[in-house]
């Protein structure tokens, strides 16, 4: 036998391994309790901190640590003063905002009307003209102008009673810095007026330090957000003390997490989970209002919530979260009554039930369990449900094109940032491009409400619309979503509509 072993080959492999693994950086300073708070979240915003790109999750979990909007939506769904100290409707289509004085961006540039105008020029009329914030949040704004350093006017195409809520996610830009780095540079290294400054935005991790010059300065030295996609890994991270805050704890993990000494905070997630009906599908039994009512009465939602949420989530009774303007608190969740459900099905001409296809996106085991539990209840009254799991991308395209190949589909309806019943009808109404559901009466009422500036009268009309919709449900209403957040070693943590006021958070003890 000759010299078969080539030691240099294997040695080079070992050396390569050592060199590469040695390049992973220094060990962490592991400074829990020493002025650092680490937060585990399932996903970082893909477009980093680009203020034109994101609405809702995951941006609202992180951005309030360094950005401020003109208003802040409180737990009742109403706008509170934030960077704007007051606002009024000065003309039917013009809102005038008075800005807070003495506020600076973290780079020293002053916050004033020019920074709001700059935000509008870039986010609404400039590079972000076709991005989600413009298209989805502020589509009606036609002009933003500075009246003085501390007063700004925002003009809309038509009267927009929701504008003070909408500007909660319009973030001012420091003009000089933005011009220097451009939109892409700004997204990676944002500058805001909030309590923390972004030091580093790497894949999977955002590191911030306290901004002492903020009007609401941060209390811990370092705030770090770590992307941990897997639910079980987030549970491990919080129970082992690798992070102090962990978002999106699975309801099935709550007992384990609490047993480990971690407090579980229940935050309101401004969404409701539904199985929405594709009413316009030709020949589908769900075209009948009786059938849709029957399906709501056939599901024992209380038992499902008790089983999978340990009773921690409210049952949805209508297309609105309970803090949305126009929510009708006189409407109770549909009573679980399988006999009534069968009677309604018989009245609609389906005494023996019918086959029903449902396309669902099940990102988690919880999602799968919930949809399967609903399907089982429906099967018990003779509706043979076939659940078809589809990828999220396919779901989105079908939603926007009404391209469903089924009688119903999973749909979590979001109500932020306007917290208004009309938000739901942007999807559920007749005016939607490629609408999948249409109730002319309800849509007309919502349409009327959207042109009213008298807040009380508007809310009353929306409540009436919800009452009408109750007898003609567009969906099987499941639960108002909740966010379960593990917290340990941290004082002052709370959330308002998922948003944590990061300036109030401190290391406990």
């Amino acid at each position, binding site marked *: *036998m*000759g010299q*078969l*072993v*080539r030691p240099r*080959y294997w040695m080079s*492999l*070992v050396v390569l*391994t050592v060199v590469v*693994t*040695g390049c*992973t*950086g*220094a*060990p*962490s300073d592991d400074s829990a309790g020493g002025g650092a708070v680490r937060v*585990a979240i399932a*996903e970082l915003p*893909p*477009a*980093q901190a*680009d203020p034109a*790109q994101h*609405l809702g999750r995951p941006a609202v979990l992180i951005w309030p640590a360094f950005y401020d909007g003109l208003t802040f939506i409180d737990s009742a769904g109403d706008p509170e003063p934030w960077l704007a100290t007051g606002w009024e409707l000065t003309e039917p289509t013009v809102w005038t905002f008075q800005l807070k004085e003495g506020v600076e961006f973290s780079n020293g540039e002053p916050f004033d009307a020019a920074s709001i105008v700059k935000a509008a020029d870039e986010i609404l009329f400039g590079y972000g003209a*076709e991005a*989600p914030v413009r*298209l*989805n949040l502020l*589509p009606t704004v036609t002009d933003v102008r500075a009246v003085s350093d501390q007063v700004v006017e925002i003009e809309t195409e038509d009267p927009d009673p929701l504008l003070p809520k909408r500007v909660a996610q319009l973030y001012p830009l420091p003009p000089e810095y933005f011009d220097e780095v451009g*939109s*892409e540079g700004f*997204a990676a290294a944002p500058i805001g007026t909030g309590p923390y400054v972004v030091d580093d935005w790497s*894949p*999977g*991790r955002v590191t911030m330090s306290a901004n002492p010059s903020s009007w609401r300065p941060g209390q811990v030295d370092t705030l770090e957000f*770590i*992307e*941990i*996609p897997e639910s*079980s*890994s987030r549970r*491990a*991270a919080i*129970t*082992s*003390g*690798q*992070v102090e805050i962990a978002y999106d704890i699975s309801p099935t993990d709550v007992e384990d997490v609490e047993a*480990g000494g971690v407090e579980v905070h229940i935050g309101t997630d401004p969404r409701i989970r539904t199985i929405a009906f594709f009413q316009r599908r030709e020949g589908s039994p769900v075209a009948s209002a009786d059938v849709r009512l029957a399906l709501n009465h056939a599901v024992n939602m209380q038992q499902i919530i008790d089983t999978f949420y340990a009773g921690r989530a409210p049952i949805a009774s209508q297309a609105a979260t309970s803090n949305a303007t126009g929510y009708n608190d006189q409407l109770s969740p549909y009573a679980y009554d399988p006999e009534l459900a069968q009677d309604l099905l018989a009245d609609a001409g389906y005494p023996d039930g019918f086959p029903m296809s449902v396309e669902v996106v099940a990102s988690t085991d919880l999602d799968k369990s919930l949809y399967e539990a609903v399907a089982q209840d429906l099967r018990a009254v003779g509706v043979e449900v076939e659940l078809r799991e589809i990828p*999220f*991308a*396919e779901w*989105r*395209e079908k*939603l*926007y*094109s009404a391209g469903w190949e089924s009688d119903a589909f999973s749909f979590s309806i979001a109500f932020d940032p306007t917290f208004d019943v009309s938000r739901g009808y*942007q*999807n559920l109404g007749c005016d939607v*491009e490629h609408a999948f559901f249409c109730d002319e009466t309800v849509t007309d009422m919502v349409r009327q409400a959207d042109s009213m500036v008298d807040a009380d009268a508007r809310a009353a009309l929306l409540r009436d619309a919800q009452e009408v919709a109750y007898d003609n449900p567009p969906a099987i209403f499941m639960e108002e979503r909740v966010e379960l957040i593990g917290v340990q070693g941290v004082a002052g943590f709370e959330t308002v509509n998922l948003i944590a006021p990061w300036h109030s958070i401190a290391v406990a003890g």
Partner: protein
Amino acid sequence: MASRLHPSGRAPALLGRGLPAFARQVGALVVLLVVTVTLLFFTLRLTGDPAVVIAGEFATPEALADIRQRYQLDQPLIVQYLTFLEQSVRLNLGSSLATGQSALGMVLARLPATLTLTVAGSAANLAIAVPAGLWIGSRAAKVDGRLAALVAFVFQGLPGYVVALVLIEVATVRLGLLPSIGGDGGLLSLILPSLAIASFLAPKLTRIIAARVREELESDYATLARAHGAGRIAVLIRHAWPNALLGATALFGVQLAGLINGIVITESIFAWPGVGKLLLDSIIVLDFPVVQAVVIVTTLLVFLVNSMTDYGLDRIDPRT
């Protein structure tokens, strides 16, 4: 001039056979890339319209049309394809539809993390499989050897993510010994994900090494060596292991190439900020340029690993 026949019957390796072999390898790489990106390009376009995803839930038809025009999604597919090929040749893989950032830049920013984990996992694989395979192969006739072979067989059937979750539960949650979050604990944070990777690679490599070692130990030359007074360990190290190395290296190369593509779940469980997570996110939002950039970069890497494996085999094969 006729090309030299490789004595082993394999294709000549990239680095060891001169310019003609190098040119052939480069040609093969170009063909591989063109075929891969072509299939990918057309397959991705069957998955949906990214304009509706970019525009969001309340986009007007005008906004959708604008987006399609801006990203040239309104062009005939063949025009889009030719533009894509032309730009790819210039190493311009486009911008992310979701973020506007350079697709290639996004991939390259995450590549070091993926490579680090790949190499560390492979090192753990070798560290477990080589001694285990030698030991099991040398004790094939004994009860303990058979028992260990059975354990390797059982482990080969265990899903990697199950082992990963068990490792986290024991080493992180119960014992508090090691971090389960990637990227912040330096070398320590590499240990658990590397072991998780090794858990699904090492059993197979162990069994291959064991089988080859057993074959070699039962061969005539091993018997002869022993008859000449060589000890059991000496026969194992000097004779059986070098010959077992050939099959093990081939499998190791295949595993390494597969790992570059298959590391997604490990990255996800250990919050490792690599290319796998980027690929998953990009597929969900139909971010074609990023998906294409990930596939092109990983194709190049797999090709490189395969070439290096061929080179390694050339170096250790006695017939070369």
